[in-house]
């Protein structure tokens, strides 16, 4: 289940790695009325993957990743409202805008570590939030940006209100992102990121330009987050200020840690479990679902460090031991 990369790890795709895709496709046919939730889950998986790259592999703890998600979302939204609703150009715009912001802010914040870095990410997100809140003529401010239309994908597939096109669109984009992230994780660059996370000091002593490498990783991660944001904009045809809120960053981090970080598929399992649980609890106990989510987090920390995939690993390991 582990995808730690490195020079001995086998990069070939294992049979079980097709399971998520099989499930996702199955959902399309079996649960057509759940597709809007499904699209959201797929989008958040991309977002979580981008965080996994810097948090799970690079060891950077951030509460500000929504800055990039939101930038991507607004870039795609503003583009659609002012220039063109062509979806692929929108995705590209979101990715580039967020990547650029990631590069600039990364150059600044990655000079620090620990609490200072955490607070800088938080402050930058809050600043972006205020900018979007104030630039009402561009962003719609607290009311959000809506009223734009997204053209059919490749001129062929129109976004329908049941969310079928959106779901497939998200799935295809996620697949591409997954493939890229997976390549990156198994590459020498991914290995060196793991090195930075595991031991920053030793990485310096091994002659690695740690700062520059983190900036690059951060930029890639920000670009991916922007891609996810642009995807959200296009599938919901609306951008709300919430995409820039630090609450979203917190929620994202919770999802990733819940799934298990630094292992690619934690970013799949976490958002799925969190959002489905939230969806379910919010319907059963709309006033109190927060309690259930909170209790789940506390229990995970108390009894299941390493997240859900960590538990599964432990169970498998135990089974193997009792067999032998």
């Amino acid at each position: 289940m582990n995808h730690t990369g490195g020079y001995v790890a086998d990069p070939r795709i294992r049979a079980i790695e097709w399971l998520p895709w099989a499930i996702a496709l199955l959902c399309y046919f079996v649960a057509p009325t759940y597709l809007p939730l499904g699209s959201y889950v797929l989008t958040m998986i991309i977002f979580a993957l981008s965080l996994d790259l810097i948090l799970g592999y690079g060891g950077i703890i951030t509460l500000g990743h929504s800055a990039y998600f939101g930038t991507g979302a607004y870039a795609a939204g503003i583009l659609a409202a002012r220039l063109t609703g062509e979806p692929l150009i929108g995705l590209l715009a979101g990715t580039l805008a967020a990547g650029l912001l990631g590069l600039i802010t990364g150059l600044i914040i990655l000079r620090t570590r620990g609490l200072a870095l955490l607070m800088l990410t938080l402050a930058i997100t809050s600043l972006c939030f205020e900018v979007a809140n104030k630039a009402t003529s561009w962003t719609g401010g607290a009311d959000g940006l809506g009223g734009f239309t997204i053209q059919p994908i490749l001129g062929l597939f129109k976004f329908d209100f049941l969310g079928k096109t959106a779901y497939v669109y998200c799935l295809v984009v996620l697949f591409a992102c997954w493939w890229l992230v997976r390549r990156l994780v198994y590459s020498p660059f991914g290995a060196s990121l793991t090195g930075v996370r595991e031991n920053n000091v030793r990485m310096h002593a091994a002659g690695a330009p740690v700062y520059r490498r983190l900036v690059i990783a951060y930029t890639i991660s920000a670009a991916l987050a922007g891609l996810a944001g642009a995807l959200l904009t296009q599938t919901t045809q609306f951008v709300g200020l919430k995409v820039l809120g630090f609450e979203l960053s917190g929620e994202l981090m919770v999802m990733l840690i819940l799934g298990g970080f630094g292992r690619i598929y934690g970013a799949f399992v976490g958002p799925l479990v969190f959002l489905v649980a939230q969806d379910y609890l919010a319907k059963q106990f709309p006033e109190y679902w927060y309690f259930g989510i909170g209790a789940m987090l506390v229990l995970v920390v108390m009894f299941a460090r390493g997240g859900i995939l960590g538990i599964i690993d432990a169970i498998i390991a135990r089974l193997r031991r009792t067999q032998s």
Partner: protein
Amino acid sequence: MRLKTSSLLAALALAAISGLAAAQTVKIGIITTYSGPGSAQGDQLDKGFKLYLKLNAGKLPPGVKVEPVFRDDTGANADAAKRLAQELIAREKVQFLTGVVWTPNAAAIAPLTAEAKVPFVSANAAGVSIPRISPYFARVSFTLWQSAYPLGQWAAKKFKRAYTVVSDFSPGHEAEEAFTKGFKEAGGEIVGSARVPMTATDFVPYMQRVKDAKPEVIFAFNPAGKQATAQMKAYADLDLNKAGIKYIGTGDITTDEELQNMGDAALGVMTVHHYSAAADRSANKAFVAAYKKEYGEKLNPGFMVVGAWDAMEMIFHAIREQNGKIDPDRTMQLIKNYKNPNSPRGPIQIDPETRDIMQNEYLREVRKVGGQLANVELETLGTLLKDPWKEFNKPK
């Protein structure tokens, strides 16, 4: 064996048909806010819907039942609201959508209702231009122009210099714009204006700024809830009243559910609004009594409870008229011609042209009645008033 199967199928089919005939169930999707910072407002809508449904189940034609499906949009969170609406339409197959505290959420849902042909009744979201997004949208709540514009005209007769302090989001901007237009048209002067961020907690600096500008009156708008209270407290803390500055606003700043929490700071505040729990119309007295019986003697229903109540009343009307077999276009016809002379807020009707609410606007003052603070209605500033903004901005 074959015989058995086919007779079983026939029996099942029969049961299904007769079941349909026996119980016509109309599903109503209700989106409101149960968690997050906006849950106080969502709670008001929830109480209104549930109270109406509990007391009026008998008012449906025989065999027709209503099944409400409640969903939590977690606040001003348009993409979540849109997703919930998609689900309610696709999975739950609801025939009505209602609820919705927040304007952005309603604006994000509205296009769907046009596509899916599901009538959507706003029980609160007041953004003035939403009805133009979808022909299946109608509103029973209010617009800020309805209260702030007449307030501006009235205020200009009493005061010459006004300062506006509003929350920095579109309802705030609409309130500011409407009041300023009304006030200026009637000869008043705006000496300053401030827009307070939605995240602000301490309002004293803003009030200090107003105090130093020495206007005769402050026009305030905050969304109902803690911001309204905090701003009013700041007004009282700095004793602006003694400095000769009057505090006025739309009814959002002295909502009935929140009024007791504001304390004596609120005494003497004058507002214009469509609903007060203290109004002595008999329909309102019965409504308030039912509310207190259900939720506790200490609680008063705010205008959002009435919004939810009237939304449900209108939906029930449409269900009754169609005997439970809902056709969206027929429903919209019924809604456009809807009139209710006996809402707790007085007579209301839907403007068939704009699908927006027409209602009375009352000038009120906060006074102590029987030891409790109350919005006492002084006079009716407009009867069955249309939304002024749509009158000024008619589509060409």
